[in-house]
């Protein structure tokens, strides 16, 4: 059964109530929720290089329709994000059904479909003053501390505070965002308070970021966010031994202390 038929079958037989995929609109593949009421639309379902956080749509939909079963296209990054969302109790794993679509290249499959396989090659000025988006964390760590600060500050001060990184993020689900709290972040000035604005987001990404790269793809100012969050997650992995996206437990920052090992017992009386 091909993809279209599977989706049609799922919708017809009630396996899923809504299916999130992509539909060609004026030649652009855009995220779309396919439903039983409009089955004819399923003929237009496509998968392509374009990526949108479909699991974010699923989370929104699930918050208003907790009983509904949801189907969606899933790449590897979507799968990790779904895992994180389940761990954080934003979705229930038994109400989600996925259809795999082609994504990152691997030794077994050379052909890849993703809008952001490689970051752009950095220009001369960025190489001299900033941090290349395609750099490895180890390369960056080798820089002298003063230079590191200067380079990060160059990257951060470009920020136009569009919140694009947060809005596209598949694992950003908080109803209240500390980056929008008027007492924590000043309004009406650009750049935002650097570097704290970006470091707050980086800290919130610790144990959550699934390294999908959508933030960097969305960033109009080309800030190497993916590199920063990748480093943050590497620290989480080294220090706490927590693997984001695959672990079944809550991330370490949501745990207030070590697990209790002593059991309460009555005082001994002499």
């Amino acid at each position, binding site marked *: 059964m091909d993809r279209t038929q599977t989706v049609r079958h799922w919708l017809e037989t009630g396996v899923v109530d809504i299916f999130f995929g992509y539909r060609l609109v004026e030649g652009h593949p855009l995220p779309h929720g396919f439903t039983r009421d409009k089955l004819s639309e399923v003929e237009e379902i496509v998968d392509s290089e374009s990526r949108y956080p479909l699991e974010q749509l699923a989370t929104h939909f699930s918050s208003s329709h907790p009983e509904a079963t949801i189907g969606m296209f899933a790449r590897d990054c979507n799968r990790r994000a779904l895992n994180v969302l389940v761990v954080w109790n934003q979705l229930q794993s038994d109400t989600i059904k996925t259809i795999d679509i082609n994504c990152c290249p691997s030794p077994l499959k050379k052909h890849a479909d993703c809008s952001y396989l490689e970051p752009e090659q950095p220009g001369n000025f960025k190489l001299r003053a900033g941090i290349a988006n395609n750099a490895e964390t180890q390369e960056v760590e080798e820089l002298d501390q003063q230079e590191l600060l200067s380079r990060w500050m160059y990257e951060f001060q470009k920020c136009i505070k569009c919140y694009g990184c947060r809005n596209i993020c598949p694992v950003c689900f908080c109803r209240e965002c500390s980056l929008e709290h008027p007492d924590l972040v000043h309004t009406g000035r650009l*750049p935002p308070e650097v570097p704290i604005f970006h470091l707050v987001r980086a800290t919130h990404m610790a144990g959550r970021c699934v390294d999908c790269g959508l933030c960097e793809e969305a960033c109009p100012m080309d800030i190497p966010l993916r590199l920063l969050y990748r480093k943050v997650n590497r620290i989480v992995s080294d220090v*706490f031994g927590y693997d984001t996206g695959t672990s079944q437990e809550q991330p370490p920052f949501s745990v207030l202390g070590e697990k209790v090992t002593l059991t309460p017992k009555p005082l001994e009386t002499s």
Partner: protein
Amino acid sequence: MTIKRVTFLQELLSFMGLKDRLHLSWISSAEAGKFVQVINDFTEKIRAMGPNPLKGYDLRPWLERLRPPDNIEKTDAAQVPSEEPEMLLIR
């Protein structure tokens, strides 16, 4: 857990270029001598490193390069305020 969290922050700050500026020690209320020692050592360490580079960090050199050259004719819509806006300096 605390030591892990602080280690996380130390590593993150070190990735930003602010290494060794966060310190964690366990001191009991009975260990006055240790308290004095830790505070003195850390004070000396920070004094040797100099003030926080972010204090008064000047973004002007960076922002200057982003500004369009003066010889471009400015229309009314794109009027740039003549005085230097306050936002350029981090306090």
